[in-house]
């Protein structure tokens, strides 16, 4: 694990009561919003495990809605998030469901944007306000939102990863972490890159032009 810093121990500045069930929930919502990439019109939020059982008393539902409205963990409007969503005419629906073998503090978002775009995001709050995103639509992923993140869906072919990293190098984007996985040899593969610099739309467009790349998504880090 990374070495802790002073502001991990004196911090975060946050609206209570729980770093995992409130602050982490805001960050999960904020990450789902970034993945959608536009203001949501509808949100279906499915709570699992401890989120479903003790979420009410921790304001987890309010915190998740605050996140998809773009609030930070220290925003004092978090307790009014549900009313704010109504005011903004964002339709929010909550469900409780067993999502299977996942972390006890797990949530599934199904967000619909103004442009009709729909994303499904599953993420967990893993303690101290830190989160991990486990799934985007049908794809298993794993990233924590601390870096600029690139998610690429491509064919499993020799040289694709080299083409992608070469585009990143040309754009002066430094890779912090990278993970490549595939369904089976030659089939669909998923590459996740966590980078120090923003992945600009121009670089993303070049990646989408690569014949083997099916989908590319650039996600900003959480503050």
């Amino acid at each position, binding site marked *: 694990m990374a*070495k*802790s*810093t*002073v*502001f*991990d*121990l*004196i*911090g*975060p*500045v*946050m*609206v*209570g*009561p*729980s*770093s995992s069930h*409130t*602050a982490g929930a805001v960050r999960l919502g904020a990450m789902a919003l970034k993945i959608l990439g536009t203001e949501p019109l509808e949100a279906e939020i499915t709570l699992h495990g*401890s989120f479903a*059982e*003790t979420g*009410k*008393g*921790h*304001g987890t539902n*309010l915190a998740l809605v605050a996140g998809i409205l773009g609030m930070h963990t*220290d925003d*004092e409007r*978090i*307790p009014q998030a549900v009313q704010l969503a109504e005011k903004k005419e964002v339709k929010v629906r909550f469900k409780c469901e067993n999502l299977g073998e996942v972390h006890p503090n797990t949530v599934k978002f199904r967000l619909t944007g103004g442009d009709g775009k729909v994303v499904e995001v599953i993420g967990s709050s893993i*303690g*101290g*306000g830190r989160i991990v995103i486990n799934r985007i639509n049908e794809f298993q992923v794993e990233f924590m939102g601390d870096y600029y993140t690139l998610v690429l869906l491509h064919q499993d072919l020799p040289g694709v990863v080299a083409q992608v990293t070469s585009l990143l190098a040309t754009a002066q984007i430094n890779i912090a972490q990278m993970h490549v996985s595939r369904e089976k040899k030659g089939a669909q593969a998923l590459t996740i890159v966590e980078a120090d610099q923003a992945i600009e739309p121009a670089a993303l467009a070049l990646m989408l032009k690569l014949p083997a790349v099916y989908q590319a998504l650039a996600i900003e880090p959480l503050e």
Partner: protein
Amino acid sequence: MRTYQDYVQLAEERELKIGEIVLVEQAEESEKTESELRERMRLSLNVMRAAVQTGLSGERKSLSGLIGGDAAKVQARWKSGESLTGERISGAIARALAVAEVNATMGKIVAAPTAGSCGVLPAVLLTVEEALNCPEEDLVTALFTAAGIGMVIADRANVSGAEGGCQAEIGSAAGMAAAAAVELSGGTPGQTGDAAALAMKSLLGLVCDPVAGLVEVPCVKRNATAATIALAAAEMALAGVESKIPLDEVIDAMNEIGKQMPCSLRETAQGGLALTPTGRRIKAEFI
């Protein structure tokens, strides 16, 4: 792995406070200037002050309705001059309850080290400030001292109730606050470590057994009692009382105890106070 003994040794060699050593180290590691880091810490201090004020006003209730108004009750006795334990102790109790109540009622706080234990450090710092009239710069430095203790705990053990029980949250907060109080009172670097060790030893083995899984019962009131433990530990250390077991070894012992603690007593609400008849009734009524 960090040791607190290293911080003490460096502070003694360079004739600096522990907080100043921590600040220099963080500036190097984060590639930020010391004044940037001090400014960020000052903002956290301001949030702590605001939370004390908000909580003492006593007008908030938690979502469950269990928490709210106790800080104001203690404040009334503190201000009436009839306090049994004296102005400083009753002031610390009221302030710790105030911040923990703000947290439980979805107000803004600084986790220190966690949200559940957020009342201890502000209560102790602001009580010492009132007693000694400390300049704000010293309070900011003392927050770096507290963070230094916390970082050693995070390295050698953890500050999570789910991993190490309440001792890891409220015990760590008391240790951090005791060290900060000693530094603000002019104690030596070694005495900051003694104070933290004495405070943490008093809370070793404390389990995390929240009623209905909420950060309310017993969490809020443990902030108040931990603040008084921190002040008692600081008093002893300033008098020259030493901890026979050094801080680093106390932290390692806390880690071992946490590993031996059953899962039912680590934030799962499946044991201890959570399973008392009243604890179960509260859960049934609310959920």
